[in-house]
């Protein structure tokens, strides 16, 4: 096997691999800015300098030449090499900043150059705290700067597109954003304009950067030059808590991190998952923070004399129980949802099957031609494949509408059927409508009782994406009933670990008074006197995997360890 020596340590490798990627794969450090594993290699930042050399192979003796100490004679490349575009080859010797003074000097020199025209406005920069330039300057940079002139001034606050704002002065011209639009999103909307130290990225005159993936450039920007219009100046990175989760705005289910502070979701960023989204996500998934924060159903709402008024949980539970009890089975329509997790849907269907009343069905929301073959899918819901795996009838929109007209009690799980045009408010006129919903929608407006339920950011739930991959969410937000000190699964941030109680406040107004579906149904079941009781999502999952053989492999631990589990196998592939 081919061998390579990095800082006097021997490694083996196969195939073609670039030295920088190899060093990073081994968990070693080498500063870099322009290199990104998913993009082409321009070698323009010149930060990943190493010394490299090859041993001298003697064809006559068929062995490497040795010096007087028995060490291989190394022929060093005359200049510092950029590791990002240097191919590792057999016998290569590499010296990084760990062992080479020349490399340390070279890296320091480049950082000095980068910083002479960088505004150094870290105290007000969104990127501070997660900024490669800041981090690498502290690790490898010079102590100060010898630059005593006026910095180059460039435009600030350029609205490149609806979602991305550029501060050209902070830009270090790594061209990652330009390469992203050329190579990944293929919109070719960005280019570098001007020349020399006046360079900065821009769109063509009269155009805007409205790429459906534009916010990924904000993630890969190694400085704070590209910022998200929504998140700009909202929060410091170190004040937020990040929770691994998934995107629930379309059928792909991109892996994401949900960033919260004061119990509000402030931003959503992609999380690396080679099996789903690599390191990217569509912009639409990032605006899901509004779903979690705004327009929420807070406390149960009961329709009284044509207006919805808040009511108590006890009243909500009793109302649902009484309505189910008094309505004949064939007049109860229960509508499950592709927008809800497996746990929610399973709890709903198993509640009614244990009760022996009602029929559970759902309708998918697929818009043919909406997808782009990359990360945006035709499927508008995150869990269509998952609901299909449950014992739930699939209705077309028209048959669901007919069923609703004939029903006396309609229970709708988290699906804006009216807003999506599947049902009309008139279809629901004749029935008592219970909407289990996280957000206020046209459907909740038409409902007689609205039961607030948790969103994907407030509960643990499993979703199966269009490719049959089961992934789960975690609670990132506290509810009025479950805080951090109750729910020990919630992610902890810097302030949880190091702050006082006063640092880590959560405003009461940001805690939504809502419960998971299984919790509400457990309360109804207690009234109904049936054997249905769950105290956490894991109970539902265990029950579900025991009941349904196709899902038997699902556990939260495996989904965490493997970044989701593919449920499409030879046996169940339709």
């Amino acid at each position, binding site marked *: 096997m081919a061998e390579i020596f990095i800082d006097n340590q021997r490694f083996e490798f196969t195939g073609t691999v670039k030295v920088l990627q190899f060093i990073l794969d081994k968990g070693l450090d080498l500063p870099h800015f322009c290199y990104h594993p998913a993009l082409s*290699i*321009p*070698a*323009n*930042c*010149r*930060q990943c*300098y190493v010394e490299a050399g090859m041993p001298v192979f003697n064809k006559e003796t068929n062995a490497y030449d040795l010096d007087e100490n028995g060490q291989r004679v190394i022929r060093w490349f*005359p*200049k*510092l090499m950029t590791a990002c*575009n240097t191919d590792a080859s057999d016998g290569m010797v590499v010296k990084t900043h760990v062992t080479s003074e020349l490399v340390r000097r*070279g890296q320091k*020199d*480049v950082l*000095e*150059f*980068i910083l*002479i*025209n960088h505004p150094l406005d870290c105290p007000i920069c969104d990127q501070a705290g997660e900024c490669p330039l800041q981090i690498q300057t502290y690790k490898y940079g010079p102590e100060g700067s*010898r*630059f005593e*002139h*006026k910095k*180059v001034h460039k435009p600030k606050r350029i609205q490149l597109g609806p979602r991305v704002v550029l501060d050209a002065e902070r830009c*270090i*011209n790594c061209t990652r954003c330009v390469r992203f639009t050329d190579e990944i999103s293929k919109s070719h909307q960005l*280019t*570098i304009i*001007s*020349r*020399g*130290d*006046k*360079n900065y990225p821009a769109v063509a005159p009269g155009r805007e950067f409205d790429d459906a993936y534009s916010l990924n450039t904000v993630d890969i920007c190694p400085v704070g030059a590209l910022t998200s219009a929504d998140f700009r100046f909202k929060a410091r990175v170190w004040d937020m808590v990040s929770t691994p989760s998934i995107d629930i705005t379309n059928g792909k289910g991109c892996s994401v991190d949900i960033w919260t502070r004061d119990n509000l979701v402030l931003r959503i960023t992609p999380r690396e998952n080679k099996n789903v989204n690599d390191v990217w996500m569509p912009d639409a998934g990032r605006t899901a923070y509004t779903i979690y924060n705004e327009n929420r159903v807070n406390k149960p709402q009961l329709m009284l004399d044509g207006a919805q008024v808040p009511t108590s949980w006890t009243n909500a539970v009793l109302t649902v129980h009484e309505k189910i009890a008094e309505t004949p089975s064939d007049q109860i329509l229960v509508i499950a949802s592709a927008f809800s997790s497996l746990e929610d849907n399973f709890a709903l269907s198993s509640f009614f099957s244990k009760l022996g009343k009602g029929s559970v069905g759902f309708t998918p929301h697929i818009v043919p031609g909406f997808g782009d073959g990359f990360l945006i899918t035709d499927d508008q819901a995150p869990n269509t494949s998952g609901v299909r795996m449950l014992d739930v009838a699939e209705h077309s929109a028209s048959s669901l509408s007919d069923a609703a007209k004939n029903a006396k009690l309609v229970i709708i799980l988290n699906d804006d059927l009216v807003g999506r045009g599947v049902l009309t408010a008139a279809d629901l006129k004749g029935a008592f409508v219970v909407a289990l919903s996280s957000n206020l929608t046209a459907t909740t407006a038409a409902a007689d009782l609205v039961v607030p339920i948790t969103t994907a950011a407030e509960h643990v739930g499993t979703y199966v994406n269009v490719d049959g991959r089961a992934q789960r969410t975690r609670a990132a937000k506290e509810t009025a009933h479950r805080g951090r000190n109750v729910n020990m699964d919630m992610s902890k941030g810097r302030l949880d670990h190091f702050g006082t109680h006063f640092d880590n406040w959560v405003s009461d107004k940001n805690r939504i008074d809502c419960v998971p579906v299984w919790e509400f149904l457990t309360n109804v079941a207690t009234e109904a006197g049936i054997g249905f009781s769950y105290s956490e999502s894991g109970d539902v999952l265990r029950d579900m995997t025991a009941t349904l053989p196709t899902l038997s492999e699902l556990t939260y631990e495996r989904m965490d360890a493997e970044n989701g589990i593919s449920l499409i196998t030879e046996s169940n592939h339709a």
Partner: protein
Amino acid sequence: MSFDWKSYQPVLIPNIPDYHKLSVYEKNGGYEQFKKVLAKQDEFTPEGVATIVKNSGLRGRGGAGFNTGLKWSFMPKPDGGPRYIAANGDESEPGTFKDRVIFEYNPHSFIEGALIAAYAMRITAVYVYIRGEYRSWIRMMEAAIADAYKAGHIGENIHGSGFTTHMYVHSGAGAYICGEESSLMESLEGKRGYPRVKPPFPAQKGLWGRPTTINNIETLANVPYILKIGAEAYAAIGAKNHPGPLLYGISGHVNKPGVYEFPSGMSIETLIYDVCGGMRNGKKLKALIPGGSSTPPLTADMIVGTTMDSDSLRTAGSMLGTAGMVVMDEDTDMVDMLTRISHFYHHESCGQCTPCRDGTGWLEKTLKKINRGDGEMRDLDLLLDICTQMEGRTICALADAAAWPVRFTITRFKEDFEARCKQTVYATA
């Protein structure tokens, strides 16, 4: 060197009226070398032509001075796909203006040379990249190529030989960096002129990913003459390791500046004091930039006995470059001169690599400070430091081209710089 320069008969810019016209060029033996090659393809195989050029010792006139025939031999075997020559007429370096006279006075010699090169490398298209500021000269080249097409020298099945190639003029848009061969290709492809990372080299992956050779205009204009007189006779012209006729573009404080053609290896003193009629107003020589602004300047002492060829100039401490000589007399303000050169490189850095993007600006700002009298002695050390931080640390050679004049002007004309700086003393612990 006791060379009788007065009796030298120029071949690249011969003294024949209307030589730029196809009829005049043909009357004086034009396109005969190309026709000879096409007619006797058994004798002049493509590889054979490349070998002749290689043996002639012709070295690239664009500055790097690489053996032209050897460069041609790097082209891979034809695979049926397109192959290109990019002829580099972007000459934008301060002090360099030699290709312009070829466009103006002898375009067909270049076209014929390019066609022979195309034959030798089995090229399907030649792109002539001319800097955008040369508007008139672009039109001249376009007219000359149109004439050559009309006469059947370019196009399909040229003169019934079965050899097909095409030639197009492409105008630059005013960027010095596009004279660097890989950014020239980017520019030809319609992209931003950013130099490419090598490898892959242009012979493997050039224009549109196809094998490409980049040659200077003057280099290709030499080719017909090589085939006319033979490799050995050509190799005997001028300096041993850098043979052939050379266009000397002489500017600055001489009485008769201009482009002169002489064999390579001319004595610098002969060129200044005899050919150009001596220093203007009888002043003393102070400094000489031998080959375009990026080559290290020489002091008056250093040019004594030095000749214009790569070996002699390397010994003297500079480079031949493009043989664009800038002569400066004793009144020249070296600080001002260097500030102006640094301004050029700051303005022209493409901004791709960090050291060049930010280093060129820093050099200029520091030099401006010194030039206006605000500099301190330590700024000179800083300038040399910045040079060290730039040299050899970038994708292309622009950082070197920007750093060398600074390094060598400061070290060779130290007194001028020190006299301009404040004599600040910093207490050290």
